[in-house]
């Protein structure tokens, strides 16, 4: 695949690994949080941790929108889908996310709820057109990357004057989540962030400037291919060595400082901030999520169906909250690989392939085993 395969070149990766080893000062530790689930996935899939010296460690952040969606919002969606008039459209990742008491959209579907997996927001519009006697609801979820496609869909619904179409909006924002991590009562030691790539194709690099300027944390926006990640890690090491803290852009081929103007404008016209939003693992964060503006209230499922907010406590044994904050690793959870597997996920980190637990289950545990055999 052009613009992907070149950035997976093994020889170049070996060269970069050498450069990282040469630059990393053996006398100090470097702890970098990769915010995005896409990065967590790339690190696990390409075994990048094995290419880094021992004093350079990656901490998995909360950047998987499926992983941070609280059980209460899943319960709300299930209740909605169980209404006979409703067809609920969801992205496939959401089907197995656990709600309360082991429920999920998948189980609701098995019981007869009309839940359809869609690939694109435009599929949801097509479903609404084809089912004029039913209420089609789109379960919108995702960071700044996925919000503009929802905006395009809302525009299309307006244009087509669809009266049987609404959106259950769960879009969240990355900068407030980063802020919550840095300001939390149990702060973690981070020397810098690998910043989200595709989020930044939309919002640009500028929204991360406060973390560099005010918090003294270097941020390098990085693409998702293994060479992108390694270059970003090298750039972070150089910043730390030089005592600099800036926002740098490794992913210049797709990201600019100010982002995608058209997408930003569309999102601003259609959505506004919620005062508070509950995140799985991070708790309630002010001004961290979006809802439809009053001008689009007729497309808001929460209003049309008078959906009431549900807050559900997470399974106390699940370590997702600590993992999403970078305080623990998947193997620190006693349910990992026993009660909790991708087939039977207990926490959301095991559901999405970008979740820290699922990534470690798929790619990392064999390496753990080999390491144990070797020692």
């Amino acid at each position, binding site marked *: *695949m*052009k*613009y*992907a395969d*070149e*950035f997976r070149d093994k*020889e*170049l990766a*070996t*060269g*970069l690994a*050498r*450069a990282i*080893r*040469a630059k990393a000062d053996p006398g100090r530790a470097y702890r970098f949080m990769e915010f*995005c*689930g*896409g990065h967590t*996935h790339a690190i696990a899939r390409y075994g990048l941790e094995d290419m880094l010296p021992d004093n350079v460690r990656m901490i998995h952040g909360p*950047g*998987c*929108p*499926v992983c941070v969606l609280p059980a209460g919002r899943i319960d709300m969606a299930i209740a909605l889908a169980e209404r006979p008039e409703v067809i609920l459209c969801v*992205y496939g*990742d959401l089907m197995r996310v656990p709600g309360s008491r082991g429920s999920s959209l998948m189980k609701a579907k098995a019981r007869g709820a009309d839940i359809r997996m869609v*690939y*694109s*927001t*435009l*599929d949801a519009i097509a479903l609404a057109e084809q089912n004029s006697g039913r209420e089609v609801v789109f379960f919108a*979820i*995702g*960071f700044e*990357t*996925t919000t*503009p*496609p929802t905006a*395009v869909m809302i*525009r299309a619904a307006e244009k087509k004057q669809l009266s049987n179409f609404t959106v259950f909006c769960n879009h969240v924002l990355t900068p407030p989540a980063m802020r919550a991590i840095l300001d939390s009562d149990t702060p973690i030691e981070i020397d810098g962030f690998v910043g*989200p790539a*595709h*989020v930044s*194709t*939309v919002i640009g690099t500028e929204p991360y400037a406060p973390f560099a300027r005010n918090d003294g944390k270097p941020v390098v926006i990085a693409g*998702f291919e293994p*060479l992108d990640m390694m*270059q970003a890690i*090298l750039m972070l090491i150089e910043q730390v060595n030089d005592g600099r803290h800036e926002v740098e852009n*490794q992913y*210049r*081929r*797709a*990201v600019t400082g100010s982002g*995608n*103007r*058209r*997408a930003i404008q*569309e999102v601003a016209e259609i959505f506004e901030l919620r005062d508070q939003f509950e995140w799985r693992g991070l708790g309630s964060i002010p001004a961290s999520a979006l809802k439809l503006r009053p001008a689009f209230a007729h497309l808001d499922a929460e209003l049309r169906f008078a959906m009431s907010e549900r807050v559900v406590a997470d399974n106390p044994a699940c370590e997702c909250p600590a993992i999403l904050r970078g305080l623990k690793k998947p193997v620190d959870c006693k349910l990992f690989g026993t009660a909790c597997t991708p087939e039977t996920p207990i926490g959301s980190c095991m559901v*999405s392939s*970008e979740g820290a637990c699922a990534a470690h289950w798929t790619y990392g545990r064999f390496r753990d085993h080999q390491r144990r055999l070797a020692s």
Partner: protein
Amino acid sequence: MCLAIPAEVIKLLPDDMAIVSIDGVSKEVSVALIEEIAVGDYVILHVGHALARIDPEEARETLDLLRQMGAATAEV
């Protein structure tokens, strides 16, 4: 969930839609979010929407830089 992939625009369609090719597999997607899209452009594709254009010049420069970074340490 946020994963997105590069795709080449091979045909423009009405209503801000386009046909893109992903390694030879073609797909109809929305290009409503990209200004002045043209056939031959590469875009980042996410949930059926083009989100950003890939800049070929920047991609080449990044690869050159990656080569230099590795080569510099090979000599020491």
